[in-house]
């Protein structure tokens, strides 16, 4: 499968929910520590190399990207300077970004579009807060501030348009309902920072968390005192975790140990696949909703890989 070389270090990769061959990639110069950022919109070409159909430069690193669920040309980016930027692929680069939302006081680390309501999205930041935005308003609808340290990820529940989860460096996972004044549930999920979380796409009570303690834990919000299971196998902090859109028990993860792992949390030998194609920290991973078994990953080695599960990502 094809490989795409980015000029900066990869931070995030997301498949378009509209086009099965389209991806967005967020990258940052100098490992996201200092310098510019760049967003690449890529098209897979079945008979040749990956084609870059658009690229947007930013003044600071791009830590995450998310596609709109109701407009195939709309893209949101989490920028390290604290801003959240909206891009419209239908407009020329000079007219982009179409909006720059600057409320967070520190690096924005994640953005996630609401898949149920489709009119709103979340941003989470190192300023310890999560913000709710709608496309028609220039300021945030609400700020959720309970976490005591960086919020690395805030992800919508796939069934309930008002419910989301947030993962923080304060070692807690919090569940929120935007209609409630406070978080509805606090899970002290790990003894170390939690860097990522995701909801199961088939059971809206199940969540996965990924931590600096190298483990991934699966939780059931109905009995949240003990995890459903603990997945050990990464040798450094797990940077991102993602439930499969196609198989209820399948989880993908990527880690500072430079690998992308696949897990089936329901079986005893849960680690069902391990890909070591990256030569630097593996930071972004995604699974296509439209093509079963199609994976994408990116990392600090400035490479974007797209491959079918079971094949070698490096194979030409």
């Amino acid at each position, binding site marked *: 499968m094809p490989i795409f070389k980015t000029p900066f270090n990869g931070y995030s990769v997301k498949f378009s929910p509209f086009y099965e061959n389209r991806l967005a990639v967020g990258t940052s110069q*100098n490992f996201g520590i200092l310098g510019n950022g760049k967003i690449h919109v890529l098209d897979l070409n079945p008979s040749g190399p990956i084609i870059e159909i658009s690229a947007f430069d930013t003044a600071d690193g791009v830590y995450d990207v998310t596609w709109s669920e109701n407009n195939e040309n709309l893209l949101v980016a989490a920028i390290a300077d604290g801003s959240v930027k909206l891009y419209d692929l239908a407009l020329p680069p000079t007219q982009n970004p179409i909006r720059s939302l600057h409320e967070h006081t520190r*690096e924005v680390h994640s953005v996630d579009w609401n898949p149920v309501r489709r009119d709103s999205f979340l941003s989470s930041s190192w300023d310890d807060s999560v913000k709710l935005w709608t496309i028609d308003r220039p300021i945030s609808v609400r700020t959720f501030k309970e976490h005591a340290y960086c919020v690395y990820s805030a992800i919508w529940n796939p069934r309930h348009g008002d419910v989301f989860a947030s993962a923080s460096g304060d070692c807690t996972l919090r569940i929120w309902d935007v209609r409630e004044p406070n978080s509805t549930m606090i899970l002290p999920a790990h003894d*170390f*920072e939690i860097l990522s979380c995701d909801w199961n796409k088939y059971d809206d009570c199940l969540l996965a968390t990924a931590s*600096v303690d190298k483990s991934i834990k699966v939780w059931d919000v109905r009995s949240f005192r003990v995890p459903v299971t603990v997945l050990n196998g990464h040798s450094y902090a797990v940077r991102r975790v993602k439930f499969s859109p196609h198989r209820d028990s399948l989880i993908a993860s990527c880690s500072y140990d430079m690998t992308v792992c696949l897990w089936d949390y329901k079986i005893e030998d849960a680690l069902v696949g*391990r890909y070591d194609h990256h030569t630097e920290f593996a930071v972004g991973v995604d699974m296509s909703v439209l093509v079963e078994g199609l994976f994408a990953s990116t990392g600090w080695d400035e490479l974007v890989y797209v491959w079918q599960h079971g094949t070698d990502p490096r194979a030409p």
Partner: protein
Amino acid sequence: MEKAFDRQKVLLQHLLPSSSSSFSSPLSASICLAGDSAAYERSSSFGDDIVIVAAYRTALCKSKRGSFKDTYADDLLAPVLKAVVEKTNVNPAEVGDIVVGTVLAPGSQRATECRMAAFYAGFPWTVNRQCSSGLQAVADVAAAIRAGFYDIGIGAGVESMSSNAMAFEGSVNPKAQDFQQAQNCLLPMGVTSENVAQRYGVTRQEQDQAAVDSHRKAAAATAAGKFRDEIIPVATKIVDPKTGEEKPITVAVDDGIRPSTTVSDLGKLKPVFKKDGSTTAGNSSQVSDGAGAVLLMKRSLAMQKGLPILGVFRHVISLMLKMSFAAVGVDPAVMGIGPAVAIPAAVKSAGLELDDIDLFEINEAFASQFVYCRKKLEIDPAKVNVNGGALAIGHPLGATGARCVATLLHEMKRPRQGLPLWNHINVHRHWDGGCSCS
């Protein structure tokens, strides 16, 4: 710059959480001195780099006519070995291994000479892995894969003791007489076996019993078809010694196993190496021909190719079966007791206890050293060489290491609880004194 520093701090916490003691990486946040455009390069902070700290050589002189024409090989090697440690003030005891390249001499003899040279140069102990060279091959391949030299490798061993005699070519360096340990390198194997029996009190009865057990277990394993998975049939020919007639045959079974051997039969055999000794043809390993090969690769590659994982060469944490390897040297006068020292070291380095191990494969060069190791380690005889060993199956010297891996890994596939470990005799020198079994 403050922002950059803060970002580094956040990211560094992911790699080096402050409240944890399990991370020992010596990373610390610092501004890159080379600036933003610095290429990613390895510097003094990368402690895992392999560096060369000393390199010396002898003069090179004309063969047969030059200054070294009457110099022994060991006298050529010893000065350079001595120089690399003396000029760097490295304690010879800290040197983990000495690997010497050589081509023309018979391999086993030159290995012995190199070991003697190490003694001349002041190294306190040495390991000579002649009879475990098959195992050393597996370990070398594992190390090379880990080092990134290549992704797939084969560790193998072969011996045709029919074709090559066990003998020393040329004369022995008289200097050996001045070094007790070097002199011991030249002892016939059988004599070292007698030394082991005497020094550690292994009786004739115990040795014969071990031989009988080995034959019984090997015969049972053969009868049960346990070796069928690991033995690859070889189509070859055999020459009738009387008529000189050549016949094609296919060999698929070990032919040295004697199921009917009893302790009273073996008790009638005369000692071979010492008048009142206890080592006989019956309780020594057999002189054999054979080969073994082990295919190793990265786990990721094996998974990608959908290959079964029979074993893991140390380190890996998960549920996989573990193998461990350690070379620990002992006095050459008591050959074959290396496993008694090496097995605890190997088990420890794999992070296990001796009790965790369910299967041991200890080479049976002689019943004396085998019984001693088993007793010294206090391991359950039911866990050791469950399908017999070299006493019954045979000991094709260089091939035995690879043979043991094959036998152990196939046995490990059979239902059993716990983690097997495999070790092998790590100490051997030369084999002038091998025994034959009739």
